[in-house]
């Protein structure tokens, strides 16, 4: 079984590495703020149609544009959910979504979290799914990528106040990158069995003579962008575990690749923009190292099975099967679990709440690392670059120079922004969890007793604040308390990071670019990669070790104590 896993992981990494390269070449000109030669006329036409003048923005305007655009997006999505009963494309006659849930869901999809407090097939009309949720799948992804572009420009522009134009970035990313990829992926998914229709739910009598109703809908078109945009909000409640969302091993592999495709491509685009592709490789390798190690850890934990069940006479050697699908087995499930939480996707092909204690701790920790191991589209790169700045700062001092990254000196203002970023998510996660395990409405949501219940809450806030969206889904989160708490965590976890990132980008762009010499710390070699990996892991470990000790670690030690 382990062999099967390593083969699968090998193929996955090979395909990812091969596709990241052209993806980087595709994204790089857009990141630089232009389109390649023959597309220029098309581009000019598109911009004119959208009424956009491609003028440079300073970081403040860029940030304001991000906020305004996303605020409007959230309002539109909220309105759609509340009014869906009156709107067309609603064959099942779904009524208005409840206020708290609609609020939570609007924020969830706008922030690229795609936390789902609702069950798709029994809550959302086709119109809401298409025009509301799927559109935000595109736009939240484009927003993340645009912010990453702005940060890349910050690193690579010299003495400039111009971070590019947010409107043009969103438009170009959506139309030139996300849309074509989605169309192709959607059709492949349909070929494999993913639904794509607007019919009402199908009912028939089964072989055994029961009535069975199957939910229907335009699934493939949403599934494609759900993965490519690292959104993860499933059309159905069971998400990518549902056979109509993820019917085969091939779709499973494609979905995993789709999740990592753009985050991986962005690292290469970053290298191209920096004029030194090794810089991109370094980030890519650092991410890969953590990812591979974590995937192996999940697989090792899951294939051990659950000793409490083995004791009842079941075949523990086949792994921990509760909450997993047979067509994926331990190998493809473990890999997917790691992919979806390393990236801030949050789609699931297995129920994370039922993972073994350690198998569940790894995805939780991957989120707590700040979603920087590939991470969300755009957000993964800018998050990782924040860590790179942090690593460079400490290491740079150690080589006796004012720390610099890509020729930009890292100074007090930059550190302030880094400090805000590394403070925000731990504050949201730890304070949110603390409030929930103290207060009655928080405790009411717990599905599992004891340490696992604690893990459910910790997982929820880790997921929300880091914009992942996966869950230990036993937690009954569709309550006013959790809808509000998690909604706030998602909003701040997204925009309280984006604003300092843009501020740093602006500050960096305005700086001179220093020449690199033998005395500057190289940021492309093995040493830097280990340093970056070390910083990410150390910060993650130091921040969350006590909480993890009281949740999954204690649970693991208890389960295996006998």
């Amino acid at each position, binding site marked *: 079984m382990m062999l099967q896993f390593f083969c699968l992981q090998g193929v996955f990494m090979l395909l990812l590495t091969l596709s990241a390269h052209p993806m980087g070449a595709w994204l790089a000109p857009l990141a630089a703020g232009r389109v390649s030669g023959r597309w220029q006329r098309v581009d000019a036409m598109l911009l004119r149609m959208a009424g956009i003048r491609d003028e440079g923005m300073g970081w403040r*305007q860029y940030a304001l544009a991000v906020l305004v655009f996303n605020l409007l997006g959230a309002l539109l999505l909220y309105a759609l959910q509340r009014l869906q009963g009156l709107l067309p494309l609603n064959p099942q006659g779904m009524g208005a979504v409840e206020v708290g849930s609609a609020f939570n869901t609007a924020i969830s999809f706008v922030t690229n979290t795609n936390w789902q407090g609702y069950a798709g097939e029994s809550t959302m009309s086709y119109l809401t799914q298409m025009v509301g949720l*799927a559109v935000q799948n595109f736009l939240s992804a484009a927003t993340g990528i645009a912010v990453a572009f702005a940060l890349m420009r910050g690193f690579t522009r010299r003495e400039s106040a111009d971070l590019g134009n947010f409107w043009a970035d*969103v438009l170009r990313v959506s139309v030139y990158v996300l849309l074509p990829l989605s169309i192709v992926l959607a059709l492949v998914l349909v070929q494999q069995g993913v639904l794509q229709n607007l019919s009402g739910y199908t009912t028939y009598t089964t072989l055994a003579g029961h009535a069975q109703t199957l939910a229907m809908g335009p699934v493939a078109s949403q599934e494609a*962008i759900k993965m490519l945009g690292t959104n993860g909000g499933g059309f159905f409640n069971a998400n990518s575990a549902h056979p109509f969302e993820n019917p085969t091993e091939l779709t499973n592999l494609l979905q995993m690749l789709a999740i990592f495709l753009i985050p991986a491509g962005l690292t290469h685009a970053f290298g191209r923009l920096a004029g030194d592709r090794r810089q991109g490789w370094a980030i890519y390798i650092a991410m890969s190292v953590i990812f591979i190690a974590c995937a192996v850890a999940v697989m090792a934990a899951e294939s051990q099975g659950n000793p409490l069940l083995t004791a009842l006479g079941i075949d523990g050697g086949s792994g921990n099967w*509760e909450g*997993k699908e047979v067509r994926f087995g331990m190998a493809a499930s473990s890999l997917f679990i790691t992919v979806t939480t390393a990236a801030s996707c949050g789609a699931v*092909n297995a129920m994370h709440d039922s993972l073994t204690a350690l198998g569940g701790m790894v995805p939780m920790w991957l989120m707590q690392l700040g979603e920087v191991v590939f991470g969300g589209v755009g957000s993964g790169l800018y998050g990782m670059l924040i860590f790179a700045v942090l690593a460079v700062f400490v290491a740079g001092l150690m080589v006796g120079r004012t720390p610099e990254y890509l020729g930009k000196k890292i100074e007090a203002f930059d550190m302030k922004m880094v400090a805000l970023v590394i403070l925000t998510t731990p504050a949201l996660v730890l304070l949110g969890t603390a409030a929930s395990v103290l207060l009655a409405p928080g405790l009411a949501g717990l599905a599992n007793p004891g*340490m696992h219940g604690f893990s459910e809450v910790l997982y929820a806030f880790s997921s929300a604040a880091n914009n992942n969206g996966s869950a230990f889904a*036993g937690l009954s989160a569709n309550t006013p308390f959790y809808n509000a708490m998690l909604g706030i965590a998602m909003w701040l976890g997204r925009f309280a990071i984006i604003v300092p990132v843009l501020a740093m980008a602006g500050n960096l762009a305005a700086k001179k670019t220093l020449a690199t010499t033998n005395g500057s710390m190289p940021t492309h070699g093995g040493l830097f990669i280990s340093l970056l990996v070390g910083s990410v892991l150390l910060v993650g470990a130091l921040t969350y070790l006590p909480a993890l000790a009281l949740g999954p670690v204690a649970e693991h030690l208890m389960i295996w104590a006998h």
Partner: protein
Amino acid sequence: MQSIVANPNLASRAERALWWPATRLLLGLTVLLGLIYPLAVTGLAQVLLPAQANGSLIVQNGQVVGSALIGQSFGKADEFWGRPSATASSPYNGAASGGSNLGPANPALAKAVAERIAALKAAGPVAPGPVPADLVTASASGLDPHISLAAALYQVPRIAKVRHLDAGKLQQLVLQQAENSWFGSQATARVNVLRLNMVLPRG
């Protein structure tokens, strides 16, 4: 912050005009990505791949009896059982997918598994060896169409007995139905329960 010197004219003009471009862009992209895109994909799918796009339904004698991708609730002694389903209101509820979300140390999980083992063993003879884990644990979607090959073979003695079949031949049938998983061995092979039950002969 003082280091940022944006062109003040450019700044004020753009700030004034922040809401309008945002609205225009949001609405434009909503039409493109929320209507044109999914409708176009639906159109293509319905023309090119109608069977898959509508649920890979299996028709027997002119009647839809299920989907090749969705499991069904089987509980009679003479049919192969699928995996336990934790879907809301009834097992294998195709309109309410979901798993049990029971944690590994939750006593409710051990209790449920113990009950399922007992039910399996009560229904008839089983193959020797430990109970295949997937046969007594709930799937993620509650709609898992498969069981492991081991789980199918485990049930062969019961079905052979009830249906008066030769256990060896039934085992052959099961093995024919088995699908291999990527890079896998027999230990990770699986069987589509609906398809298997559809080809089950009576002795």
